[in-house]
């Protein structure tokens, strides 16, 4: 018998917490993107666990779409990082403060 779904769900919650903490405290835009990937993976793990628990392949299909959206997000996000770096020579998000009120 497989381990209970709650174990995987708790593991996913911890992974989400680590990713959220990194996103809130890091300054480098690249590391922040990696933390977003961690959070997306935590949600994917939750979806797959529920797909197993409820015997519903819809959870796995959702993970498939999340992966596609994550790929698109990384492509555009890294394009923005490169464009910003050309003007600033820095990937620190604290230096992007022109639009501060």
């Amino acid at each position, binding site marked *: 018998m497989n381990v209970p779904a709650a174990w995987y769900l708790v593991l996913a919650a911890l992974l989400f*917490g680590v990713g959220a903490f990194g996103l809130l405290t890091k300054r480098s835009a690249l590391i922040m993107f990696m933390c977003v990937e961690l959070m997306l993976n935590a949600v994917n793990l939750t979806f797959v666990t529920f797909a197993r628990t409820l015997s519903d392949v819809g959870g796995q299909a959702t993970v498939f779409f999340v992966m596609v959206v994550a790929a698109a997000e990384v492509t555009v996000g890294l394009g923005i990082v490169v464009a910003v770096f050309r003007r600033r020579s820095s990937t620190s998000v604290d230096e992007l403060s022109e639009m501060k009120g």
Partner: protein
Amino acid sequence: MLGVTLQYTWPSILIFATSALLILVGAIGVITLANPVHAALSLIMTLFGVAVAFVAQSADFLAAVQIIVYAGAIVVLFLFVIMFLGVDRRDSVTVDPLVGQRVFAAVGVLITVAGLITLMARSHWVTGAMSVSTHGHALTTGSQNVKQLGTAIFTTYLFAFEATAALLIIAVVGAVMLARRERVPNPEEIDV
């Protein structure tokens, strides 16, 4: 020791422990390592751990996609950008620009995670209702998993699938536009 867990088979516990170790060590590495290249390699470790958890939960196709797309493509893209920009020296910040940001982040994350764990560990999710997407069949593994997932994507989720095709095209065009340099006009054209 572990008297309460003996009702589950040892292989499944071992697989869970392996994936948990890979996931958590990798995730903590991402947020603690100063060098972005090391952080990206740590991210690969986490993605492998998630793939192990996928296999253990009969999501074979998604585990393969996880390795190929995430570890194979997305992390390589990260490493390419890190090398391209030459920011692999160190994370540039040791100071807190916002007062108490780390403390507030830690408190917020702790509250969120505690709530999630309470919700997930203490609830009983299985309703006994038949699933819609598999037409009442149980979830399968191996090549049957690919067939089942493909059937769901190309029938129930067909519109979402077509929308992701459009999304990917838009993302590619957007990335090309963002990364393009402004073309410098020819000197003759300026003279005229």
